[in-house]
């Protein structure tokens, strides 16, 4: 049972990791990287590491997402509608 849960989480994480590299929109990429953090949290819980899971939830899925989102605004990359922008440019 636990193996199947882990399998689903791992597949989800790897897919999000690839998405981080491929997604056009940086906002979506940051969101995908937060999904990796969440998956990691679940795996840490499954591996009986509650302290690590707590830290990862606070840092990996929370704090680092906030820092990156803040950075996006400062770097002028805060375009949720990246696709629309591309269409305009074309």
């Amino acid at each position, binding site marked *: 049972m636990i193996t199947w849960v882990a399998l689903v989480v791992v597949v989800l994480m790897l897919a999000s990791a690839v998405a981080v590299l491929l997604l056009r929109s940086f906002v979506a990429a940051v969101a995908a990287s937060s999904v990796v953090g969440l998956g990691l949290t679940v795996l840490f819980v499954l591996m009986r590491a509650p*302290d690590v899971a*707590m*830290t990862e939830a606070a840092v990996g899925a929370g*704090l680092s997402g*906030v*820092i990156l989102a*803040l950075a996006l*605004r*400062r770097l002028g990359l805060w375009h949720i509608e990246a696709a629309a922008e591309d269409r305009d440019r074309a």
Partner: protein
Amino acid sequence: MRNLASLLFAGGLAFLLLAIASQLAFGTPSMRVGAEILAVAPDEVGAANLVTAVLLGYRGIDTLGELAILFAAATAAGVVLGRRHANARRDPPGGEVLRTGADLLFPLLLVVGLYVIAHGHLTPGGGFQGGVILAAAFFVIILAQPTRHLRHSLISWIEGLAGAAFILIGLWALVEDGDFLAPLLGQGAMGELLSAGTLPLLSLAIGLKVGAELAGIMAHIAEAEAPDA
């Protein structure tokens, strides 16, 4: 071309790592040191949460180094973003909902953060996790009212004194017991809030320092000039 080469390289690396790792006995670790620590830590340190016992006891100097790294990162970020133009643009203030929410959330996060810090030696959690929550509490305020200056002097006092407190507790042990960061104050009854000697004090120092550090970094980033775009 370069991407293809990198892709092939990554594939090779993955294969090699997998081939190596498949020979390791994951799931049945030897636990040479781990088992010994599990056996003696309850008596030697007296914390119910053995992760905290290792973090602040057996590997205390690692934790000090880690605090120093976070401090170095915050200081370096200050060096990089330090000089701010007086008339730089700021973000517009958040809406009414956000501001009300922030006023409600702030005390709540503060209490939760302190609770997590104070119970680090008993339950999962501790200085780092609680510190992150404290930082989040201050950040909610920045987010809601960007025009309000976060007092950088206050932050630097908190982070300086909390870090110094960690080291001074260690030096106290050095003078008292001959060993830097050796546990002091007696262990008390396991499972109680005031137990495990100096561990809760160290936790508190870590929590305040981490909270101040992260709040400072985020304030620096938030205060950096917004792009014209």
